[in-house]
């Protein structure tokens, strides 16, 4: 009796006392949630999105990305001049610009970042691969020389500028091994990491030496939750203000929730169906169905695939249809390809007929000269969206006589299949697969590079090789003039659309959500007008523009729906019935208790 009362009391007290302490008076805190923490926050070794979210707020680049169109805008450098031969760029840094710890930001820091940090890091060496020298004639001047003209030096040098007086103290071995920067993490961005509580939160406080306008929030918190589901729940309950990455599966639900606005914006990433176009010269030992290299077959497949439907089902309608190699996110360089393969099953059949692929009476798979249009389609098990897209591709191409055999494998296995080597040369073993790529914020080079010949053995996974395309690629990579570059890129996209090493199925979206009662309506930038609300992983312009909502803040969290009530009713009813039965039965046998044991 007593024990039960005590237990009940303890539980009540526990629940009551567990209300988290009230927010600090006066301090305006922006609370965001994520399900995974950054590994170490060291730009030398980390590679996760969460790291980029923190770095892009903690640091500047030499040249930042403008929130309006992601074009070049001052970062650590105030201005820059390009030499006539385009192989030298001279940057002038801001005067009097200080790190968060008061030390001046000088050309020494830039030199360290470009010469020591970038080449020795995991993710950044490619950005400086053309750099031959970095000269610093004075504290505020940096002269970067490149082997050939490289437009990225101005528009896409995605290398954070780190304080040399902090990082230079560590040995390279330690930096590439297990060095973890300790807070406060010195930077030049609007907020710097001031506390890291593993498994709990990362706190970023306002940098007093920030060059730009003072942001509305004093503090930014990244709060760790157990999984994505818990993050989204926390948003509906009002525990956090903003979620920078919402899951596709829950986006629709969040859109309908009270006091929450869910935003879907364009991004530089896409999901593609890749074909194995390896030729004898580059990969003599590759294994694949030769039919995959018939361009008419690929084109027919492109006509048969309903990309809108793939978006609706595999991406739950949250993404965008793919239109060629370059996502329309690249506003400065994107042109919709003239040959866009709008859904046309008849045309698909026609193409295959013209190419001599005879339809088969039983089963319907076309064949020509003993070869069948039967391809394996690999897809990684870690992505349910990719798996569904694969199944849809199969479903959509069956009517034109093409048989895609969907094989779900682990990402390791897929990597192995696409990168394995025989006798030192690449020998990929697949017909087709579905995967995705993500590009840089402004410079289209990363994505365009994927189908160059020199990327074979590196990031090329279709093993496409076209000297004309390669020539155009080199040309555009050195073209600093936007308009001229756009024209060259347009030709490249046309080539890619004609030869179809990739069929880009969807352009993936960045899904985010925030509380309308906590935040004033954020502007959609990076790029305007359909970008996201945090300039996620790219820059801090959005974060500094966020502000608390006006006085009219309606409280409370979302409603979880009435089905819960139904469960409760059912359970209570069941318990009641069981209880009654047990009591009835016991009463009848009450008298027999003591006698039982004698047996």
């Amino acid at each position, binding site marked *: 009796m007593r024990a039960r009362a005590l237990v009940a009391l303890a539980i009540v007290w526990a629940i009551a006392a567990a209300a988290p302490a009230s927010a600090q008076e006066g301090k305006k805190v922006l609370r965001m949630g994520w399900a995974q923490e950054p590994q170490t926050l060291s730009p030398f070794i980390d590679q996760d999105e969460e790291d980029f979210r923190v770095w892009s707020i903690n640091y500047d680049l030499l040249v930042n990305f403008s929130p309006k169109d992601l074009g070049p805008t001052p970062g650590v450098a105030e201005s820059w001049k390009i030499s006539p031969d385009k192989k030298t760029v001279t940057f002038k840094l801001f005067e009097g610009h200080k790190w968060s710890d008061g030390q001046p930001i000088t050309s020494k820091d830039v030199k360290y970042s470009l010469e020591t940090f970038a080449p020795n890091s995991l993710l950044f060496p490619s950005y400086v691969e053309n750099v031959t020298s970095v000269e610093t004639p004075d504290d505020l001047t940096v002269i970067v020389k490149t082997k050939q003209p490289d437009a990225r030096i101005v528009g896409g040098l995605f290398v954070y500028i780190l304080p040399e007086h902090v990082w230079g103290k560590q040995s390279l071995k330690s930096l590439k091994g297990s060095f973890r920067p300790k807070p406060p993490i010195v930077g030049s961005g609007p907020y710097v990491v001031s506390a890291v509580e593993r498994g709990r939160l990362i706190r970023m406080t306002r940098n007093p030496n920030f060059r730009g306008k003072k942001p509305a929030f004093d503090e930014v918190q990244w709060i760790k939750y157990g999984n994505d*589901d818990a993050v*989204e729940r926390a948003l509906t309950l009002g525990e956090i203000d903003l979620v920078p990455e919402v899951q596709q*599966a*829950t986006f629709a639900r969040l859109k309908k929730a009270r006091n929450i606005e869910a935003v879907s914006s364009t991004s530089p990433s896409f999901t593609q169906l890749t074909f194995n176009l390896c030729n004898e010269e580059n990969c003599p030992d590759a294994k694949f169905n030769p039919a995959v290299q018939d361009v008419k077959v690929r084109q027919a497949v492109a006509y048969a695939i309903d990309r809108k439907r793939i978006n609706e*089902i595999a991406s739950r309608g949250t993404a965008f249809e793919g239109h060629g190699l370059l996502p329309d996110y690249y506003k400065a360089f994107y042109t919709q390809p003239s040959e866009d393969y709008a859904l046309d099953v008849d045309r698909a059949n026609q193409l295959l007929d013209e190419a001599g692929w005879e339809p088969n009476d039983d089963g319907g798979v076309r064949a020509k000269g003993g070869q069948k249009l039967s391809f394996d389609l690999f897809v990684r098990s870690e992505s349910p969206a990719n798996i*569904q897209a694969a199944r849809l591709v199969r479903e959509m191409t069956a009517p034109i006589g093409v048989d895609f055999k969907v*094989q779900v*494998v*682990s990402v*390791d296995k897929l990597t192995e299949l696409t990168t394995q080597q025989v006798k030192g040369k690449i020998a990929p073993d697949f017909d087709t697969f579905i995967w995705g790529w993500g590009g840089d914020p402004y410079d289209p080079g990363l994505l365009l590079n994927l189908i160059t010949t020199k990327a074979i053995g590196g990031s090329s996974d279709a093993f496409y090789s076209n000297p004309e395309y390669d020539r155009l690629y080199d040309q555009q990579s050195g073209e600093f003039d936007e308009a001229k570059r756009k024209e060259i890129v347009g030709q490249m996209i046309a080539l890619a659309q004609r030869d179809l090493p990739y069929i880009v199925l969807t352009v993936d979206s960045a899904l985010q959500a925030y509380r309308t009662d906590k935040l004033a309506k954020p502007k959609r930038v990076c790029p305007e007008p359909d970008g996201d609300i945090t300039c996620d992983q790219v820059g801090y312009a959005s974060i500094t523009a966020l502000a608390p909502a006006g006085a009219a803040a309606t409280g409370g969290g979302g409603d979880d729906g009435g089905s819960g009530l139904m469960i409760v009713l059912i359970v209570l009813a069941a318990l009641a019935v069981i209880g009654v039965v047990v009591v009835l039965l016991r009463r009848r046998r009450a008298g027999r208790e003591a006698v039982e044991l004698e047996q």
Partner: protein
Amino acid sequence: MSEIRRLLFRTKRGLFGVSLLGLFTFLAVFGALLAPEDPRASSTDVLIGPSSSHLLGTTEAGSDVLSQLMVGARVSLVVGFAAAVISSVLGAAVGLIGGYFGGWTDRILDAFENWFLVIPTLPLMVVLARLLDPSLLVLILVIGLTSWAGTGRIVRAQVLTLKERAFVERARALGATDTYILRTHILPNTLPLIFANTVLIVAVAILLEASLAFLGLGDPNSISWGTMLEAGFGSGAPSAGAWWYVVPPGLCITLLVLAVAVLGYLFEEHVNPRLRDQR
């Protein structure tokens, strides 16, 4: 034989176990044909509750939960039985050989057995499954090759008692070879025990397969009740209140394991009369 029939069809517990097991076996064989929809067909009706078109609602991909449930029976049963058979054969072999021959063979085998008994099962399987590429075969092998020790122990104990019995002594005196004795005297007398134990191992194997699938180590190409729970949990079904997605698969696992366990205990009691008095 007739004793088994009596146990299965004439006792309350037997009937319970047989009918449930029969139902699930039927589903395992015909589930794919009888399912109302293609379990993998996705649609835009995501996480919708039970309705006339989807009796058990839909998954996070818009697939029909009932269809997935019916098709999922196959993996659970196939893996459960296959793994249990491997486990039993291995365990029985070790128990027979070790128990009969004794000496150093026995000691070494016993040490192995001890080790496998002591090692925590799920962590061991997790480690093995992670190192290999996940597939049904890997699952079956991993479960089968790590859970044999219990059978081995039981069989060995039985063999030890049988070894001293009169008919074995007589056979040896008459010059029978070890193989002969094992085959005609020891083995037939241990079979009932092995059989009863195997049934219990099936129950354990079904639970283990579901656990591995739930942790993401299952076969990504098949649908099983464990993968349904994994997908449901991973896509936030509990938070969405989508009970139709997560309750039925677990219930099926529970009922199947119950049925098999009840049958297993039934046989075990029959083989080991000592246990009967406990009831």
